[in-house]
């Protein structure tokens, strides 16, 4: 599937803020056999004092910028072209859960895709005993790691209610889990905590999701969204698989990936001083428009 992707983020701080340094992770990344991204262009208004870019440890493109002081409104516009390849319906080659630990010790690699980064607690995903209990029940009897991922994802999707008003970006996963509600970020981080608790390395994926209109209705502009889901390691043979607990499905061509991290803190679309100015109101809109093949 080929897309033309457009993201627009607006901040209104209410009053002028001091100079500040920001990191943006908004550009879709290159993923061999999964996604090809090109022509990514990011415009920032007003223009920043400084701007440059680098790739972070996990390979995500990061834009680094310094805003001048006295800015009270900020706009970030990104456009790109993305080609998402449909995954072939494959056999489940993943390892049984009982063998995952020993397969893991055979991996002696610390590159960005090494499962070792994603097994232990991380800044936003501590060990939560209640989530671990839930995950142990959900994964019990799963014949393979792949099946365990799906069981946990479905169980969480049924257990949690999607509610954009119930949590904030900083809500601890234990609170979201106890309240049984949240947004894609909460669903994903809770699922990651559960997967790690049963010994499955799991990463946080950040990106975009195409929202298909109900049958017979026109597509609404800006209705697509920034999104988060889960990437789980299922053994040496099968490698990584991606699951979207908010929508209870494996990830396909409706998802577009920006990058991966241990949790939200590694992959947040916007990091920096803007977060410190609590009064801001932010809004974003996403368009993923299909292009002819």
């Amino acid at each position, binding site marked *: 599937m080929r897309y033309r992707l457009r993201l627009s983020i607006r901040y209104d701080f209410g009053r002028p803020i001091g100079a500040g340094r920001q990191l943006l992770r908004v550009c879709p990344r290159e993923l061999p056999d999964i996604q090809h991204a090109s022509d990514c262009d990011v415009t920032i208004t007003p223009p920043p004092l400084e701007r440059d870019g680098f790739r972070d440890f996990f390979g995500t493109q990061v834009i680094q910028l310094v805003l001048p002081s006295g800015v009270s409104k900020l706009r970030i516009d990104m456009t790109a072209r993305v080609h998402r390849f449909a995954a072939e319906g494959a056999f489940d080659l993943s390892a049984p859960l009982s063998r995952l630990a020993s397969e893991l010790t055979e991996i002696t690699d610390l590159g960005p895709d090494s499962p070792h980064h994603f097994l232990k607690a991380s800044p936003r995903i501590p060990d939560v005993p209640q989530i671990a209990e839930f995950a142990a029940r959900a994964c019990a009897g799963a014949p393979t790691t792949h099946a365990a991922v799906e069981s946990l994802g479905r169980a969480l999707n049924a257990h949690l209610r999607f509610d954009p008003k119930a949590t904030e970006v900083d809500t601890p996963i234990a609170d979201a889990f106890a309240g049984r509600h949240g947004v894609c970020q909460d669903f994903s981080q809770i699922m990651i905590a559960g997967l790690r608790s049963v010994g499955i390395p799991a990463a946080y994926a950040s990106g975009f999701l195409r929202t298909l209109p109900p049958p017979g209705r026109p597509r609404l502009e800006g209705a697509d969204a920034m999104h988060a889901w889960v990437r789980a390691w299922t053994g040496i043979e099968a490698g990584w698989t991606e699951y979207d607990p908010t929508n209870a499905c494996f990830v396909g061509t409706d998802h577009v990936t920006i990058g991966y991290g241990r949790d939200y803190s590694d992959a947040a679309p916007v*990091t920096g001083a803007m977060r410190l100015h609590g009064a801001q109101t932010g809004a974003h809109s996403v368009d993923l428009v299909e292009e002819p093949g």
Partner: protein
Amino acid sequence: MTGERAGQITAGGAGLGAYRPLPGVADEMLGADGQIRPIWSRMAAHLGGLAPADLAIQMARADRYLRDSGVFYRQYGSAQAATADRAWPFSHIPVLLDEDDWSQIASALIQRADLLESVMADLYGPNHLVSSGRLPAGLVAGNPAWLRPMVGIRPRSGHYLHFLAFELGRGPDGKWWVLADRVQAPSGAGYALENRVATARAFSDLYAQENVQRLAGFFRDFRDALLNRRQDRDSRVAILTPGPLNETYYEHAYIARYLGFTLVQGEDLDVRDGQLMVRTVAGLRPIEVLWRRLDAEYADPLELDPASRIGTPGMVAALRAGGLTMVNSLGSGILETRALMAFLPKLAPHLLGEKLAMPNVATWWCGDAAARSAVLSAPDRMILGDALATGMPADQRGDATRAGDLETADLARRLQSDGTGLVAQEAVTLSTTPTLLQGRLAPRPMTIRVFLSRNGSGWTVMPGGFARIGATPDPAAIAMQHGGSAADVWVVSPRPVAPVSMVTGTPTPLRRRSASGLPARAADNLFWLGRYVERSEGIVRLLRAYHTRLAEAGPASAPLLAAMKPLFDQVGVDPKTGVPKALLENLSAAIGSAGRVRDRFSPDAWSALDDIDRSARRMSSRVTPGDDAARALSALLRKLAGISGLVHENMYRFVGWRFLTIGRLHERAMGISAALAVLADPEAPEGALDLAIEIGDSVLTHRRRFSVTASRDTVIDLLALDPLNPRALRHQVDGLRDQIDMLPAANDHGALSPLAREVLLLHADLATADPTTLTSAELWSHRSRIGALSELLTRAYFP
């Protein structure tokens, strides 16, 4: 020199004859045969020859030095963080080490430093150690001290590590062991210097006779090495501190002052176009070398710990851009991981081609099956703890347990289920060294911390160090947080040692530092320090005048005392208590400001300030209104005058002094204008003019200049308009104008800053006024214009 039998020296002090090592434990002073080791013989003779009273006097010299110079150590976990400064827990008797033993220690530690550098370069570079199976991947990837944003960033200097410390202990066989590697941001080198000065006071005769290796050369070389790492000679070397609430802030300020480096906090710094900058009163100035005393994850809230309030957004970006040398590289904390000690002995032959010259404490990472069976076979010798913890087993009483205390089945289960997260270390028996307890010598376990720095040609080892002495014979109670104490370490040479000083031997061309390096935060604190001290003095003068009149005239003084009310209201003081709360608060605020600029404040002035604060607090609970209060306040006033003397006679006329002075002049101008507006008002009661003269400390001058009774004109003339009277308003404003004129960017070829213009206008108004036109309303107006100067100053220099 042969050892003298300990039993022969019974006559002297310190109970030397009764000193006996603990059974089965090596002792530094006595050999296994009970003989005094040769290196200790002069020390033993010295102690043995002292009468108890003389011993007490000599040891007290060291205590006085430490108290007077304000050496402190902050204790964590106290509810009142601000008052938890603890007197330095000092153990008077140094640990004596033979120069030949020392050179073996030194070369072994240099080898270990090279090993750590290689491991660091691999962990933040190609990761061969993990990919070749020499280190378990999980130990690195699951380690919070491994900072992913730093992976792949090559250090500008070519080296990751520049300043290290090792914690050593001596086992029962007399051999040294490494107990811990301090690689993150090692502390203690400054305390080692202070310990040296104190110990040299306590043992002044002996110190002069013994050939004790000096410490200054180590610091001089490291200072020069850091200065030489700059490419631009106008850029700076700075020390980054977490701030005054940190446990070892005293040391950060001390080292900054000793080496002449700028002490900065995260908020003083900014990154512009990839270059680290410090905000000074003259704008942003580049920093090329930063010696951090801050754990790495706090250094950059943007790319490291987002919860850090003491970091600098963009610090990692500055390192990525390559314009900064960080001592040590961010991420070096991973080398302190306890489990790493299980691997270092095997990594040394691989990375260096040689075995470790000094072993580290025997360590087993329980993710390995062979290690698990080793632990199960000898659980009584093993301390079990978190594999990723840092520091020594002795410091970690919280998370460490003796494996032998667990049921064997429990231990086996724990090792099996959580082996990768556990590490076992052999329980160490430390050697003991003599320490003085109630005037008598007693053996106590000790460790020593040894410091290494990298200079141009390689590693240099500080010839001496920092010994930690246990409070009890239990080796686990050695940390200072557990009541342990610190002692000096003397490396004693058989030959005379050359004296060293901080002055470099080879002459370099004289370079005057530009005057603009003062961090804006430091300037702000100096300004407020000047204000708080002066305000305290003003309050004391007002109060003394009040209580003197209360004592002398009793009820008859009521109208005059009532007339003073607006003056007390201005400073928030209730005069009825002799030493009111507002005065104590002012003194605390002064101490707070001084504490934040300890690197720029003389130790004498510091102890004077501390002394006033203590006196005032003592008096506040005791004095009664009237004569008693007046006398107490006179005593405080004399002490305050002492501070002014120390500051103004001793402080170099640098930019920092100007801010301090501006604060003082500003506050005094505020005080005198209010006093005159109230007390020289035509409506003021009988005696108000004399009161004004007294508060203005100008009784004698008034008598000499006018030889008449006070009139409004004479008082205004003397206290408002006379430029020669150091208490007059005019004198303060003249001073403000002079000082402000010399501040950076105040006067750019005749173009005045808003601050410089306002103070010039104020000056002109006062210079052209005469006593009849200077009404109370006019004085109030001057006072508020002076008040506004403070805001202009803040806006211009401490934004």
